[in-house]
């Protein structure tokens, strides 16, 4: 991958993946909302061998700015080989249960803003007639669960949206990859107890990198989540509502 745009580049998982691209001498556009963090990640990627690193400050919730980002990346690099979508928030499920505003704010970031961006990214790649769209979803989107369904529902929306995009862009030579990490040790989960199913951000980032350059359409990270989630999807709803599954 030569020209890579990372939407949500201050994510720990995305940055770990970016380090792999930098090591190959890629050209990178990093987009996220905090300029200091962007600068810190950009310097790291430069040291690691990126041919060129640009940064773009954006709050993805402000959807009109997304068009500016894509236009800037296209103009600066003369096209894009990979767009990696990584931003997201893990809302406080309990707080959301008592607040429409919190529920919709999380929905805005994880679903609405993401779908807006995917729509624009798809137009760009379709026009280019080449490139890859890799999106970090989550195992949480595979089944609504008691303790994180606000988050999981948004990821499920993204998954379905990507399924459609994949079918549509296939003819244009554009690849669409859905990446579903399991619990990962990042700032997003800093407050959580780390059970044995957690993996490091480096490991997850490495798997994201490999997924983005690989040929699988839907990638679980790590792969052992695929059978686990298959089993969880098969649990009848009547039983599921009494289980309290958490990782």
């Amino acid at each position, binding site marked *: 991958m030569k020209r890579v745009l990372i939407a949500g580049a201050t994510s*720990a998982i995305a940055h770990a993946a970016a380090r792999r691209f930098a090591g190959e001498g890629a050209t990178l556009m990093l987009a996220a909302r905090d300029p*200091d*963090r962007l600068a*810190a*990640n950009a*310097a*790291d990627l430069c*040291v*690691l061998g990126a041919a060129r690193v640009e940064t773009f400050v954006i709050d993805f919730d402000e959807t009109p700015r997304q068009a500016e980002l894509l236009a800037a990346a296209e103009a600066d690099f003369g096209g894009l080989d990979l767009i990696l979508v990584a931003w997201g928030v893990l809302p406080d499920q309990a707080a959301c249960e008592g607040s429409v505003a919190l529920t919709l704010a999380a929905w805005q970031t994880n679903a609405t803003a993401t779908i807006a961006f995917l729509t624009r990214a798809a137009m760009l790649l379709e026009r280019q007639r080449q490139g890859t769209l890799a999106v970090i979803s989550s195992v949480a989107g595979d089944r609504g669960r008691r303790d994180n369904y606000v988050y999981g529902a948004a990821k499920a929306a993204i998954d379905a949206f990507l399924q459609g995009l994949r079918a549509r862009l296939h003819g244009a030579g554009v690849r669409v990859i859905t990446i579903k990490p399991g619990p990962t040790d990042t*700032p997003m989960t*800093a407050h959580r107890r*780390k059970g044995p199913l957690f993996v490091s*951000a480096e490991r997850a980032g490495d798997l994201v990198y490999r997924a983005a350059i690989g040929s699988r359409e839907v990638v679980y990270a790590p792969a052992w989540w695929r059978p686990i989630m298959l089993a969880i999807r098969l649990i009848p709803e009547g039983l599921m509502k009494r289980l309290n599954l958490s990782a």
Partner: protein
Amino acid sequence: MSRYESWGRYPRAQQRRVLPAFWRGDPPALDPADAPYLPYGLGRSYGDCCLNADGTLIDARPLSRFIAFDAQAGRLTCEAGVSLAEILNLIVPRGWFPPVTPGTKFITVGGAIANDVHGKNHHRAGTFGRYVRRFELLRSDGRRLLCSPDENAELYAATIGGLGLTGLILWAELELKPIPGPQIELEAVRCRSLAEFVDRSLESDASDEYTAGWIDGLSRGGRLGRGVLLRGNHARGDGRWRGVKPSPLRLPFDAPGFALNPLGVEAFNALYYRVQQRKERRALAGYGAFFYPLDVVHNWNRAYGRRGFLQWQCVVPHDDGARAASAILERLGATRRAWFVVGKVFGDLPSPGMLSFPRPGLTLAIDLPNDGPRVFEALDAVDRIVLEVGGALYPAKDARMAPATFRAGFPRWREFARQIDPAFSSSLWRRLTHDEAPA
């Protein structure tokens, strides 16, 4: 929270909280309610200097970004959680090397500074701290202080070898050393006693950048202190060793079991035996096999089981014909537990650190399984030998020395204590100072 243990897995400590540090520009706020705080790197310290029972550990490992690398001048700036392994991957292909490296690459820059680590080239290079040009230190009051020999000089000197007690190092600027290639030309020299080990080391100091060796901790009587000195230099690209093409000596210490003591004994004997065969004395090794033989086995420390193990490292004068060191070996040998001993003759290059451990003399590092009071009694006995000859014990390896032993070995400890951050402490520090309020 079992992730946060020390390498010897003794003692154990239950921390109240773990606070990860993710961004150097936006470090965590240190709420007084969660004090005392202690930074944690990769937990490669053996005893309790990286533990903080009932306190909060600040996990510095996510601070793992590079900041700048000047491949012309050999200067690297990076966050404090960056590991030596990551640094090596970056710099070795570009012809640079850390001026000082310990025997594992799975340590962080912050940990290397806080223990002011030393390597096989101490006689030439001194300690890690000599190559730390400056760093940024986060104090619990939220101040971020740039520390160098010219700026906040006292904190700079206190933080190098400061056991993590002066604050959280956020990033550091390091000097590197140019190397001709990634390999090491090495020679193994058989030594019949500790005195011979010292003599051969001193005589190699002029010719060899790296000198250190293995000493047989079990042999007694006439064989007491026999060992093998390894000496080496960075090989030029053509890999020729002083004009001679080296024979392919398979280093026994690249075998996984070398560290695991019963096997280690065999490996030692194998090496000792091989060294007697003249033609197999010289070898060319990758830098990994030479510097980090144990790193090929992750978690080898767990082989000691749940009770963990102790490492005991001292430095004692050797101008008495290595008498003190021999007495130590004799006493520990009697436990039949000191299977393996690493030795090195330190040079006299000073460190900027107030509490730095290395000083001229012979250092011995000895692994002992934690199998009960006998081992502790033996260590108390050898502590007394160290004290008598004016030596010191390495806090990075310590889990049990007495406060008085520490204070005798580190006379500047009071001056150091004034630089400690009021909200920082560690299990080690409480153990070593509980009997006396620092003035």
